[in-house]
């Protein structure tokens, strides 16, 4: 299979305009004849569904939550980037493009990243028009703040709830289309299979989570907008329901998966406190602006943080990365924390954390100022841990956060199955091997509002004369039968362990061997471990109840079954990439002082993986990354 990214010709800054000027259109009367399915109602799914419905395509929208407003985009805190240059600090589309490409360690496409930066300008206008209450200066102009990895202030924010406010803007646009009967919204429905007819995506099989009924929906195109799958590590910053089932089942129907092992592990989360724990809450990156990260210099230190004198503290980020210090990028900060914890310098009951200390800033700027800046985060910390971060340092730890990998898509956001599109975190496209802060909300929005409406038309224009999809097609019978058989299979095992038991075991294995640092030996061992665990799962899983009713355990079991397969692919992906780049750190490929060693000669490509069947090794299809406009450089922060 030869992958064609379909990058338009011409200068970088003209590519997207050139594409838009030459893409095929569908006239308004014909749009009514071209129904589209959108899976997921987060920022990318809701914005796509609303925008397509406004254009006149009949949209069927699905989410597993009980309301479209609850998708996990809601939890993004910090902000959304845009190259408006409102601060007159030298920002531009080109600079944002370069920062994002460099932040991703030069493992993404120039054309995609440039388009992301270009479309960021319009996004802020669109969100303001919808009523998103971004922070404002006293004179009424929009306010900005700075974020990790860049030297300008281009982040727009709505206190610490930017994701919530952007999502509500998209949700409200979606609900307007529901009222106009342009969108049919199916909440509490989970996609369990993709239906492919004559090589094209033509429908889905979903399960109604309130009744257990298996339902069929046909359309002329399917858009997957189901977000990331960091929850595969069990402990993560994600919501409990976040899952990879839609993208994985599409993968098994022929859509390639790109770089599935590239997972961002966020450095500032609350550490695990016990086996019962279900989630690791994120503490905003903004805390690193003023907090200092350290561990004791003494192994197995028994004293409380405040009793350890200054000269016995190791401010390891300031020591290793003097020019960026505590604001080193996420992948580098997380790895440095792991290095210290693994070496035996971790703090806290389970020795799995590092200190984030505010005593210096409290002394310098005063308690009142610190309260004003971070009061809500300190009170959140207290709610969860019962500890007072004004009196003693916070204890923080890295946790799985964002999937840079996902379904492979071309410049049009179309997967290798014609008619199947993937938008937002569900695709792999724009962040390379490491995502910069405040770029995830941006990518989700831009994909849904501004890119997909053009690219999907270019595809649908060709489907006007094709035979219309119908749920009576035999491919629907086959897909529905497989879905029902899988549900029966899971529920009839009647073993002795719950889906969560298996998920926790998988998560630990994956975090240890395919998390912050990876090695050939560890990954090979992990593949064997995952296969054993998968066999055990099908022998010893226990799900109570029946498939024909509300059954949260059955939902979980299906998701864990998929995780047990994706985990193996992640390990293959990490094993085949014999270099270190961004979040992917191979122990064998590092500089003498422990920094990532990229290999542009051999690995300057996107790894796209083809499913070949159960228990058969997947096939790698590399998509070479061609850099025409910028020069590859070493990503140094020291």
């Amino acid at each position: 299979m030869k992958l064609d990214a379909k990058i338009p010709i011409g200068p970088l800054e003209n590519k997207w305009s050139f594409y838009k000027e030459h893409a095929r259109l569908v006239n308004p009367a014909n749009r009514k004849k071209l129904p589209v399915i959108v899976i997921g109602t987060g920022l990318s799914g809701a914005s796509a569904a609303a925008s397509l419905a406004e254009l006149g395509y009949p949209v069927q929208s699905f989410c597993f939550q009980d309301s479209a407003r609850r998708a996990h985009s809601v939890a993004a805190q910090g902000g959304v980037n845009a190259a408006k240059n409102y601060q007159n600090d030298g920002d531009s589309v080109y600079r944002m493009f370069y920062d994002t490409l460099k932040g991703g360690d030069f493992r993404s496409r120039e054309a995609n990243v440039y388009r992301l930066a270009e479309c960021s300008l319009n996004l802020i206008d669109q969100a303001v028009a919808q009523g998103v209450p971004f922070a404002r200066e006293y004179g009424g102009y929009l306010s900005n703040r700075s974020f990790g990895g860049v030297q300008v202030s281009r982040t727009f924010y709505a206190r610490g709830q930017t994701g919530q406010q952007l999502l509500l803007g998209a949700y409200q646009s979606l609900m307007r289309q529901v009222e106009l009967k342009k969108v049919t919204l199916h909440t509490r429905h989970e996609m369990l299979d993709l239906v492919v007819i004559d090589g094209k995506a033509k429908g889905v099989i979903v399960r109604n989570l309130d009744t257990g009924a298996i339902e069929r929906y046909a359309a002329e195109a399917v858009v997957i907008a189901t977000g990331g799958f960091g929850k595969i590590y069990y402990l993560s910053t994600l919501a409990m329901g976040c899952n990879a089932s839609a993208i994985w089942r599409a993968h098994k129907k022929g859509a390639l998966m790109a770089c599935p092992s590239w997972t961002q592990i966020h450095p500032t989360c609350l550490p695990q406190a016990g086996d019962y724990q279900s989630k690791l809450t994120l503490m905003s990156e903004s805390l690193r602006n003023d907090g200092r990260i350290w561990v004791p210099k003494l192994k197995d230190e028994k004293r409380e943080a405040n009793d350890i004198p200054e000269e016995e503290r190791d401010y390891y980020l300031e020591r290793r990365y003097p020019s960026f210090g505590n604001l080193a990028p996420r992948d580098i900060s997380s790895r440095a924390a792991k290095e210290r914890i693994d070496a035996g310098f971790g703090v806290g009951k389970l020795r799995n954390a590092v200190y984030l200390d505010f005593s210096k800033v409290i002394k310098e700027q005063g308690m009142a100022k610190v309260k004003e800046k971070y009061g809500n985060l300190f009170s959140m910390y207290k709610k969860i841990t019962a500890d007072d971060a004004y009196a003693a340092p916070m204890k923080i730890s890295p946790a799985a956060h964002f999937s840079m990998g996902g379904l492979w898509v071309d410049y049009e956001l179309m997967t290798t199955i014609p008619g199947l599109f993937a938008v937002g975190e569900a695709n792999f496209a724009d962040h390379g091997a490491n995502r910069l802060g405040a770029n995830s909300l941006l990518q989700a929005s831009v994909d849904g509002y501004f890119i997909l409406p053009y690219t999907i038309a270019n595809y649908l224009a060709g489907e006007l004369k094709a035979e219309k999809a119908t749920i009576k097609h035999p491919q629907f019978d086959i897909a529905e039968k497989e879905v029902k058989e899988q549900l029966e299979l899971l529920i009839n095992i009647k073993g002795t362990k719950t889906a969560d038991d298996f998920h926790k075991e998988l998560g630990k294995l994956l975090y240890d061997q395919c998390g912050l640092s990876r090695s050939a030996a560890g990954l090979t061992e992990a593949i064997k471990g995952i296969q054993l665990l998968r066999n055990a799962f099908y022998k010893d899983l226990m799900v109570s109840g029946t498939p024909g009713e509300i059954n949260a355990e059955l939902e979980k079991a299906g998701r864990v079954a998929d995780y047990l397969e994706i985990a193996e692919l992640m390990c293959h992906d990490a094993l085949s990439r014999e270099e270190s780049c961004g979040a992917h750190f191979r122990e064998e490929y590092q500089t003498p002082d422990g920094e990532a060693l990229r290999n542009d000669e051999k690995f300057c490509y996107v790894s796209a993986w083809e499913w070949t069947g159960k228990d058969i090794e997947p096939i790698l299809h590399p998509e070479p990354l061609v850099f025409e406009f910028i020069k590859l450089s070493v990503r140094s922060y020291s």
Partner: protein
Amino acid sequence: MNIHLKIWRQKDAQTEGKLVDYDLNEIDQHMSFLEMIDTLNKQLILKGDNPVEFDHDCREGICGSCGMMINGQAHGPVPGLTVCQLHMREFKENETIYVEPFRAVAFPVKRDLKIDRSAFDRIIQSGGFITASTGQPQEANALLINHETAESAFDSAACIGCGACVATCKNSSAALFTSAKISHLAKLPQGKQEADKRVLHMVAQMDEEGFGHCSNTEACEAKCPQGISVLNIARMNWEHLRAEVLK
């Protein structure tokens, strides 16, 4: 710690429910309330029983999925929290804890602690938006909004749609939820174009869904995890009256 639970179990909206007793031992006081229910559910599943069904997702207080009455209070005894942020250290050794679904005519029980809050979506659908199709807007800074107005609109917009206000109100009124959205959009210049139509439609929809009237006890604000102010209700009433007069 050891606790005694009395949890509402109900098969579906048509079947009568009842409180069922469960004893849990050796619960870690640093567990969240939902992790405590996870622990109970694991025991139930391994016995072959149906676990307690409850809504939850982000477990960090922002998605608005979780919500239950704990000892008669929406989201439990601590103000300003959702259930997922409540921890077992707030309870005493050997305490008996009553756990029930949010109760309102407009929120029928689906199963156990899971309820149907789609009425909230229909209220938003009836007018809780600004008509601004993708691609039309003007340059963002062309519209000046002073700091205070933006902050005040944010305060109203922070609602997470959990339904604690309805569950707490003796009349099962959705006035706090509805008014928060009306106020968020009415405070902003972008939202003023459709303000009259919006308030008339949303209030009518709220009544149609079977929510009760507001009798100004302000209990909703006390139990709102986001601290949404009852002043939003005053604004809704004012906006509604104005729209009626100008109709």
